[in-house]
């Protein structure tokens, strides 16, 4: 019984810590969407989809592989591990078939890039999202 309680406590702790790091999808305000499907997001973040339906270029922004924000977004929103995403990028970059996403170091930089870059897409913690960017839900 004690073990069960302990497992529950650990589980709760994990839930809390992961929700503390949870991030939401954000885009530049000029992109007129309320939500995107997970399959579309996978195509965008694996750098295989390069333009929005209105023809504007998609600009993908990510944080470092080892940041909790990136790990959280990869695993919980895209459903892949950061190392899988990196391999997908490397395959594109070194076969001439695609380009790498742009890397930012902090959430402040992410916010600034999403706000100022037409066609930008990225992710931010809820606390760092404001009206200057558009928060999207994932279908």
């Amino acid at each position, binding site marked *: 019984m004690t073990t069960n309680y302990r497992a529950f406590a650990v589980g709760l702790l994990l839930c809390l810590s992961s929700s503390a790091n949870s991030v939401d999808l954000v885009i530049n305000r000029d992109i007129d969407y309320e939500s995107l499907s997970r*399959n579309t997001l996978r*195509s965008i973040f694996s750098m*295989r989809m390069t*333009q929005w339906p209105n023809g504007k270029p998609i*600009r993908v922004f990510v944080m470092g592989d*080892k940041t909790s924000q990136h790990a959280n977004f990869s695993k919980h929103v895209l459903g*892949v591990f950061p*190392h899988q995403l990196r391999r997908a990028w490397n395959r594109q970059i070194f*076969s001439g078939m695609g380009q790498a996403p742009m890397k930012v170091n902090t959430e402040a930089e992410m916010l600034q890039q999403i706000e100022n870059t037409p066609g930008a897409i990225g992710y931010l913690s809820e606390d760092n999202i404001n009206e200057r960017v558009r928060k999207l839900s994932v279908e």
Partner: protein
Amino acid sequence: MSVYGSSPLNKCWAIRLMALLLLSANGLSASQLDQLDGALQVHGFLTQAYVKTTENSFFGDSQDGSWDFRELGINSSYRFTPSTMASIQLLSRRAGEMYDGSLDLDYAQLDATIYTADANRVGIIVGRYKNPFGLYNDTRDVAATRPGNFMPQAIYWDRVRNMVLSNDGAQLFGDLQVDEHRFSIRLIGGKTPIDENVEKSYLNPLLDPEMEQDGLTLGGRLLYEWDGGRFNLAYSSAHLTLDAETSLLPDGEVEIDYQVLSAQYNSGRWSLTLEYMQEPLNYSGFGGLMDAGDTTLDGYYLQGTYRLRDDLELFARYEESHYDKQDKRGEKTAQRLGLEAHNFYSRVSTLGLLWEVTEGLIVRGEFSQVDGTIFLSNLENPPPQMRSRNWNLFSLLVSYSF
């Protein structure tokens, strides 16, 4: 710029130039390269390996410990519009006596998407492009993307690497996404850069073979991906004919069919990959014994990987290659050609560990136990009679990419 396998004279020059380019590109900050919103990008990689074998030579004079496995690449891409992109990559590859490290044009292509709707697209690539064969051919020289320090030789032969590496011509591509299902097709047509490694593998090196491609290499790949790559299934194929001249036999031709079936399951922490290759070879015009030597090579490998930590991956692989798929132990071929059977097959068990130190830096060590000598290069080994059947292979590799 040199053609494949050119003189060793420009080897040092190539390495120095590549090192300079890599250092200067990497010295630029992201913001400097970011002048055009990321539309212009520069990437590269540097790899150095140490190879040690108990018998035989693989990637250099490996019995004494070889440092002659080195790969340097630099590329640049520019996206003019969301649907058009140009990209170029230069490669210097030293691989024992097989490749001397001179500078090659790895690819130089223009890619245009003609139709696009969401994740669906149809387009064309023209120029020199890497062939999309199996799961790994198009980035086989990038240590971070391949499944081990060496490509599984059962599918991705290093001794005849150029036969399938790239093409000068055109490629049509199409992607279709339906819910969780993604279908990709690539059709290729073009000239394949043939080199000495190919010439001296498909014909006896003592005959001084010289080959030229007759017509075009035609083929392609069909790929099905489920749930963002959780499961992948692919069929790849290429067909080419080589006209050959030798010092002894009448002129003839070698017809090559290359087919690969690939399956992969990825489950985050672990993955399982199976690839099978068969390659019917048809010799004609040389007369006698040579023309009667038609065979179908085949081979497969099964690899399992497990991620111990976010940055640590353990892998195990078993592979087999056969000179004649009907004669898996090489005995009949050995009798016919008067050589020992181990020259006509290989069975390899490999265990390896990959450490991703940072986003760009990897270190990988692996150990293989090998029975057979089929994938050893004629360019760096003594005649088949003098090769050892059982041997071990150890390698340590460090690679940096950006």
